[in-house]
């Protein structure tokens, strides 16, 4: 059990900036945003200049699935909604959608990032926290960017 925890610790700890704060990077040469951070800009390669960039956490659902069969780590959460979210700055990522009935999730829905428990590294293993997304609400003051072409 201790071994399991130790394994998870380094794996999670080294990505904390990304999974806690949505830190990716931006190529100063071509202006493209990347999440997760890339080692090299695929468009500019050696001419690229990647700088850390923290995403605002607002986006739009590009596609989604409702998972009814999942590995052990996620069994307790089934059925859950997983989606690809287009972040407003341009990158797309995969994350769970929470705080909404699965019947109400739609392509084009506006969402914002939230901080949640993701899973555990086995029984007694460390608990992994990170990003999930939830629908934006008018009361939060987040701009209602039109779900245009999606």
């Amino acid at each position, binding site marked *: 059990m201790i071994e399991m925890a130790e394994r998870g610790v380094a794996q999670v700890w080294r*990505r904390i900036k990304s999974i806690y704060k949505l830190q990716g990077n931006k190529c100063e040469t071509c202006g493209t945003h990347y999440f*997760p951070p890339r080692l090299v800009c695929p468009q500019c390669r050696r001419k690229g200049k990647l700088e850390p960039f923290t995403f605002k956490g607002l986006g739009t659902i*590009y*596609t*989604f*699935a*409702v*998972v*009814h*069969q*999942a*590995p*052990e780590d*996620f*069994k307790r*959460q089934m*059925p*859950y909604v*997983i*989606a*690809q979210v287009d972040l407003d700055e341009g990158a*797309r*990522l*995969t*994350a*769970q959608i929470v705080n909404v009935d699965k019947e109400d999730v739609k*392509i084009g829905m506006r969402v914002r990032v939230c901080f949640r428990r*993701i*899973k555990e590294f086995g029984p007694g293993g460390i608990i*992994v926290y*990170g*990003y999930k997304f939830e629908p934006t609400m008018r009361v939060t003051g987040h701009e209602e960017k039109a779900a245009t072409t999606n």
Partner: protein
Amino acid sequence: MNNRVAIIGVGINKFGELWDKNLMDIAYEAGMYAIWDAGISGADIDGMVIGNMSAGRFTGQEHLGALAVDMAGLGDIPAYSVEAACASGGAAVRQAYMAIKSGEHDLMVVLGCEKMSDVSQSEAMNTISVASDWEWEGTFGGTFPALYAFMARRHMHDYGTTEEHLALPVVKNHANAAHNPFAQFQSPVPLDVVMSSAMLAEPLRVLHSSPVTDGAAGLVVCREDLAKKYTDTPVIIEASDQRSDTLALHDRKSITTMSSVVTSTRCALKQANLELKDIDVLELHDSFSIGEIILTEDVGIAKKGEGGKALEEGITEIGGKFPVNTSGGLKARGHPVGATGVAQIVELVLQLRGDADKRQVDGAEKALAVNIGGTGATSIVHVLGR
């Protein structure tokens, strides 16, 4: 360098959940069938390639090349293990093709194998998930079926593909497998049964997905000029092409097309000096039914968005213009991941030789196989001819 590469023997075992056999039992069986089929002896073989995705996680064993040579009693010939997730089998075929074309090897055995039923369903699902981007898709709950469900949802949204369309490849492939004695499932499945099966990852259902399978397939390949010594019916590998794409599905511009498939198909046909209309029979990677719909479009049988319609019209049935997955495909023949790419070639060789029995496509002369790794991060295309 100008040597063409011929397939002179094929072998495959009955796919299924083979509780009484381990990985090497099934690989040995398929390899020996191929060797007998080719009429060669062990001394003729100067190398082996073995395609496998994840024996280390599925069975605990790695170093399969040496193991296979050892079990087959082939002494000290070199053996190469290759891995490209679900395209490991296709990658093995391509490695042998390149090795012979380069002049380094003359006659090789190619094996594809996977033993998946020794671990729990949950562990099998985790192992398959590492074919996609484990750190950024899998660990956030993006199961492998969910990633294909992403494609299906978007395909339905953009092109009006229906739930019935999603079921059509399954019905067709099960009907084909009913005539394949090596298939895991040899019984037809009616449309309504597919459409009412349990949800896996909405909009995909359990019966839209290929199963957990143990199985192996083998080939004997050699220089074309040597082939005459062993057989009057060699099948030539007329082209081989492989392309890559981003590992994570979310990093692609479009998730309703696999650009790796579009490019590798185009390049392979060009290499073979053929057009799609010249192809008589195809094996397309249908790990999920939406995969077959997308590939039907990406190889050019149907326009983008009209893959479902092509299935509706029966274009891809045996007897149609472009028969797809006469073997039963991954859905019904079974999908032992590392074996699949080789099993596809076995089926096409049988078709080109006229040995496919009740599922025979009359007069088939040219064939094409598409083997996918992950969600399209690897695409390997082979064109065969007689």
